[in-house]
């Protein structure tokens, strides 16, 4: 950092990582730092990274909870490969994260937490602050616990509880270091802890003490300023993927006039969608916390039959349980949106960590020929568009649609340009209103499987209208009439019709646009879902070297957009980075007979831009 004297330096970006015990309030600290930076107008991307246990054994590596935020004065697409500043609340927080730090970066530790017992728990044989292992870093030892306890002495909280405000001390210190305004956080503390004024007081004091410590301790030689990024004009809000998904669903309900129903069972990392929607009853949203995953989707299917915009949310293990009901929805041909917030599997796997390993299951994980469109969101804010798109497809084509997001998108956040509501295109449920056929005797009759010639979608006829009474189910239905049919020829026709209807969506979804500014690339990087940011950053790094590389990112992963094959045909090399063992690459190879090369990662964390850059360079042979 700076040589001497307290100056304020302008920097264009910084990556800060807060790390401590899962009970230390690191998510909240990171969240607040993000929020004030967002309001300052920085571009940002976040990566909350926390253990599956609510309170894992204190002081251990397994219990470390971290929150990384990348803030900048320019457009960024990732949470940053490596932090510039690590705030470690204890030795375990230091040990778990120091490997990610490059030499010359800054490490701020809560020195009060560095004692022999803590070293043992974290697995340090010697004191890392004195054994020379941190000599390549700018190390700041700050007595966060003791100062916090001191300033909170007569705040009204018990001495034991006073210690719990130390995350606000850390927030205050980092806010000072990066010249963040204090008002937003101080008023937020008042609102959040309204019911417990003594806690509000302690947190306020700790926050101020942290801020003042920076100012007066003469430990730091500079403060840093990151000015606002240049964004397109408009109003912004910082939004997580789960919130954006929930809002997309509400928007779809408003735009279609269909009442929204969510049937769901709590599961990490999807539950926040249920939480958000359950707060929004003024939109006519009905949320139902079911007895299990099966009832979650079952109730949603029942609501869909009744004419609601029906949704179920889950993560990997829950998707397994929902498979049978998705199959029934395929057979019934009713609109239903299934949201899978992917996490690392198999089985319980790493419940809080990101992976993209449910793709093949989403595309084909059901018995029988049961095609389902699959949409994948690519950034936290884009979850809004993806959820809306999933609903549009479900309603237009009378089909279950699987929307894939993941743990990284779900909890990560970024600024979202709030759309003008009047710009959002409305869509119509187009319910059946009258009989659509005649019997041999010339009487009007309702044929529930008489298809729209363009979309091949069948009529949606919720109960309530006389003359449209009909019975349908999971048994194969006669083409048109919808009555039970065991005829082999009819079955083959129905299987093909169901396939053709879903394949037809390839022409409905937006055609792919390959990002290839020079038009001279021979290599195209093909991605899907939450890897967008890392792929985009990696590709840009390669281009900055004067090399040519193209990037295409798929949001409709089944069916592929109609022009994808032709668009890929212009390239000679194909690199497919995925957070699985190569699932999209299998689909691409099978469909287009291209030599798709996989770059895979299943470590529970997103790709780094550097990894993408290195893989591209290697593929290019550069």
């Amino acid at each position, binding site marked *: 950092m700076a040589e001497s004297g307290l100056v304020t330096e302008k920097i264009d970006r910084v990556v800060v990582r807060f790390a401590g015990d899962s009970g230390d309030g690191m998510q909240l600290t990171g969240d607040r730092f993000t929020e004030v930076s967002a309001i300052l107008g920085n571009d940002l991307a976040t990566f909350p990274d926390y253990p599956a246990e609510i309170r894992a054994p204190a002081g251990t590596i397994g219990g470390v909870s971290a929150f990384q935020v990348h803030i900048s004065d320019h457009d960024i697409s990732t949470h940053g490969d490596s932090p510039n500043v690590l705030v470690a609340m204890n030795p375990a927080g230091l040990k778990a994260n120091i490997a990610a730090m490059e030499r010359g970066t800054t490490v701020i530790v809560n020195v009060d937490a560095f004692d022999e017992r803590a070293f043992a728990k974290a697995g340090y044989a010697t004191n890392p602050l004195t054994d020379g292992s941190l000599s390549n870093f700018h190390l700041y030892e700050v007595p966060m616990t003791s100062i916090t306890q001191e300033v909170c002495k007569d705040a009204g909280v018990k001495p034991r509880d006073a210690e719990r405000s130390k995350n606000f001390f850390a927030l205050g210190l980092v806010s000072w270091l990066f010249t963040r305004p204090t008002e937003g956080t101080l008023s937020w503390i008042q609102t959040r802890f309204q019911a417990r004024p003594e806690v509000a007081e302690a947190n306020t004091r700790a926050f101020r003490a942290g801020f003042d410590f920076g100012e007066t301790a003469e430990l730091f030689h500079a403060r840093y300023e990151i000015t606002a990024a240049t964004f397109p004009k408009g109003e*912004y809000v910082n939004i997580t993927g789960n919130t954006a998904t929930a809002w997309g669903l509400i928007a779809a309900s*408003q735009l279609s006039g269909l009442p929204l129903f969510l049937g769901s069972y709590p599961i990490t990392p999807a539950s926040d969608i249920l939480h958000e929607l359950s707060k929004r009853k003024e939109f006519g949203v009905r949320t139902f916390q079911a007895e299990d995953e099966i009832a979650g989707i*079952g109730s949603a299917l029942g609501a869909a*039959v009744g004419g609601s915009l029906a949704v179920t949310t889950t993560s990997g293990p829950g998707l397994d349980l929902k498979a049978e009901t998705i199959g029934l929805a395929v057979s019934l041909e009713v609109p239903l949106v299934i949201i899978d917030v992917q996490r690392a599997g198999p089985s319980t796997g790493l419940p809080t960590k990101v992976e993209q390993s449910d793709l093949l299951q989403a595309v084909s994980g059901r018995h029988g020929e049961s095609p389902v469109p699959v949409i994948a969101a690519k950034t936290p804010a884009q979850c809004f568009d993806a959820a809306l798109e999933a609903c549009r497809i479900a309603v237009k084509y009378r089909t279950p649609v699987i929307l894939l997001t993941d743990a990284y998108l779900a909890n990560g956040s970024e600024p979202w340009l709030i759309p003008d509501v009047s710009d959002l295109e409305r869509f119509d449920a187009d319910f059946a209103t009258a009989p659509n056929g005649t019997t041999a005797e010339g009487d009007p009759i309702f044929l529930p499987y008489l298809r729209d010639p363009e979309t091949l979608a069948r009529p949606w006829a919720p109960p309530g209208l006389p003359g449209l009474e009909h019975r349908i189910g999971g048994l194969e239905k006669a083409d048109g009439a919808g009555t*039970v049919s065991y005829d082999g020829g009819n079955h083959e026709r129905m299987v093909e019709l169901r396939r053709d209807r879903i394949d037809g969506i390839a022409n409905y979804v937006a055609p792919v646009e390959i990002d290839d500014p020079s038009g001279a690339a021979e290599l195209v990087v093909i991605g899907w879902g939450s890897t967008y940011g890392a792929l985009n950053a990696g590709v840009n790094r390669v281009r900055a070297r004067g090399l040519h590389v193209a990037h295409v990112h798929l949001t409709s992963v089944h069916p592929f957009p109609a022009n994808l094959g032709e668009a890929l045909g212009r390239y000679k090399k194909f690199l497919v980075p995925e957070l699985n063992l190569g699932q999209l690459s299998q689909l691409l190879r099978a469909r287009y007979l291209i030599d798709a090369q996989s770059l895979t990662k299943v470590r529970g964390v997103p790709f780094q831009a550097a990894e993408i850059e290195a893989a591209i360079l290697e593929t290019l042979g550069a």
Partner: protein
Amino acid sequence: MTSTAVPLTTRKDWSSDQEVRWCPGCGDYSILAALQMMMPDLGVRRESTVFVSGIGCAARFPYYMNTYGLHSIHGRAPAIATGLATTRPDLDVWVISGDGDALSIGGNHLIHALRRNVNLNILMFNNQIYGLTKGQYSPTSEQGKVTKSTPFGSLDQPFNPISLAIGAEATFVARTHDMDRAHMQATFTAAHQHKGASFVEVYQNCNVFNDGAFNSITSKDARSSMLIDLKHGEPILFGADNERGVLQRPDGSLEIVEVADVGLENILVHDAHRPDPALAFSLSRLSSGVVEPTPVGVFRDIQRSDYGEQMTEQVLEAQEKKGTGDLAKLFRSASTWTVD
């Protein structure tokens, strides 16, 4: 959906054009007939009536009713019907299930639909056997039952469906049987009139795989001595001359007694509206099988808000407090900033 008077209908109006495909002699025929004949008297509309079923012989039922119908997946009908009934309180939703469907694969959904008091009429046809898979024992089969899957006798203790439903604090619990159309119709009508979840166990004969399972209590000559017909507000009596009855012992437990021995005034008067489910539960325990006098009729019929109604109330309350949802406001419900 319309406000005009409900049109007069006959059984024919409620019967679909589909050929009924149960085995000849199946008890399901008489249940179907009882229901089709009863529907015109309920004062409801065909277009507002939905039959939802799972999988099994009983689950074919919706195909034969000229209403809206959904033949779904094994065990899941109560869950699917929950979504339909809570979002469409204007509909009359019936769930048709069997002992395997409702109590084995779908046991979880059944008890939760009952405890939530979703506005459903759940009819469970109990034939104590798996019919559609050709004769394996079911969760209501008597212990020791020799079937294709249990050649040495089944080990399982059977469920008592009435006890289970009362244990889940269902608000309406009743039992009837396929040999008595009038009793079925009276019971189904009461179930329909009840707001919230109604559970009706229907003893049903599977003449192919478990023929005569209930003969010892439901055959014409056995009924008077083996069926105890519960009637709200009346002393619980049975026998050809009502010579037997149910007595509540001082410790609260129940026993079957000769009326002459204890006096009519000491016979328990049935109170289906009693909020505490304990006595109804005791009644369900009077018989452990078809060898003992078995209560039929309405065990329990109490009032509690139905689930969908409460869900709607929460929506209306939120709209009253916050006004109808406004997307532009929603998008600004967290701190925003403006870039000029």
